[in-house]
């Protein structure tokens, strides 16, 4: 479990959270983020992604609180989940506690499963089933991996490939 937290106390303070989790068999990854907007003109951006396979479970839990004094603040939260099979689980539990009117707040959540049609499409281009799944997952993670320094991005792609090799056979 991992819940980093930001408290925006100074006028114009900003925070940004980017995270990705990958839950395999027997894992329940419960991650999220908390932010308290406690001053004027503060802003926060949350971009969370999760992947679950082999019955793994990903839970996203967040709190965004915008206090009464935090006029003209902005917050944008986006969470996306990808499930690789029928037995995996994804939960999204966002709490948005907005105590003033003068704010811009958005929350976006998307949950999806890799479709057989997409896999067939990629296989018709010569990719094996494992290659196809890994490509879809790497594409899903790309908005996160492109933010990473290149060494880490390469490492993350390798981890995805390793995880998916285990998913089949």
């Amino acid at each position, binding site marked *: 479990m991992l819940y980093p937290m930001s408290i925006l106390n100074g006028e114009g303070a900003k925070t940004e959270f980017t995270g990705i989790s990958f839950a395999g068999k027997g894992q329940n990854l419960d991650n999220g983020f908390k932010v308290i907007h406690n001053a004027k003109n503060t802003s926060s951006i949350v971009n969370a992604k999760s992947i679950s396979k082999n019955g793994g479970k990903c839970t996203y839990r967040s709190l965004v609180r915008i206090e009464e004094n935090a006029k003209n603040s902005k917050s944008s939260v986006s969470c996306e989940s990808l499930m690789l099979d029928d037995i995996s689980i994804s939960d999204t539990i966002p709490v948005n506690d907005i105590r003033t009117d003068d704010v811009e707040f958005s929350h976006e959540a998307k949950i999806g499963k890799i479709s057989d049609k997409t896999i067939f499409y990629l296989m018709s281009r010569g990719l094996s089933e494992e290659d*196809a799944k890994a490509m879809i997952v790497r594409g899903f993670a790309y908005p996160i991996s492109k933010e990473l320094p290149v060494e880490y991005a390469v490492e993350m792609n390798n981890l995805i490939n390793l995880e998916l090799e285990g998913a089949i056979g």
Partner: protein
Amino acid sequence: MSDQLLEIKDLHVKAEDKEILKGIYLKINKGEIHVIMGPNGSGKTTTANAILNNPVYHKVRGSIEFDGENITNWKTDEIARRGIFMSFQLPEEIPGVSVTNFLKYAKNKVTGRPVKIFEFKDELKKYMEELNMNPKNMERSLNVGFSGGEKKKNEILQMLVLNPKLAILDETDSGLDVDAIKTVSKGIEMFKNNNNAVLIITHNTKILHSLKVDYVHVLVDGKIVKTGNQNLAKEIEENGYAQYK
């Protein structure tokens, strides 16, 4: 016969317990362009999917031979690597994977050789110019936010890059305007040579105005009921499918 590329014999195919193909026979030689025409629901898309062995469709009986191998029960990716390509009616969207990266990866899988990046980019650029495609699309996610016409052109681009022995074009002409159909025909002409073949699946005859084809097959209710030349397409354009039902 060394000229023979594809032979389908007595193919029966079911989808969700419903028999859709009821004994298809089809022979395609190198250097030929074939067209399968038929009304909606006659089994055209099923034929294409069965050749690629889409697991949604079950082969009950019959065989498919391609380039000297019995591929009836091969996996889709093995069939693709052997040299069959299919252009999809509704191409799938892959967020986060650019057209360039996808094609580079697929070409590597199909040829079994590493792709030389500069040569590859030049090749891609050349084809995109011929197909009137926006070069910016190369770096966009595959098919994501593409218009219907852009998706179809992208399928033709993939065909040119992957250079299969047999290209199956499933309703590639449907939903396209006159200019886009001409572009698609141009792509087919660029692709076509004496060592490969094209199978076009369509329910209208528009694309046949700008392309010379060798054989036209009429598919009705899961069977090929008539085979002829380009004149057969003209006849259907005038009289419809009713006479074959």
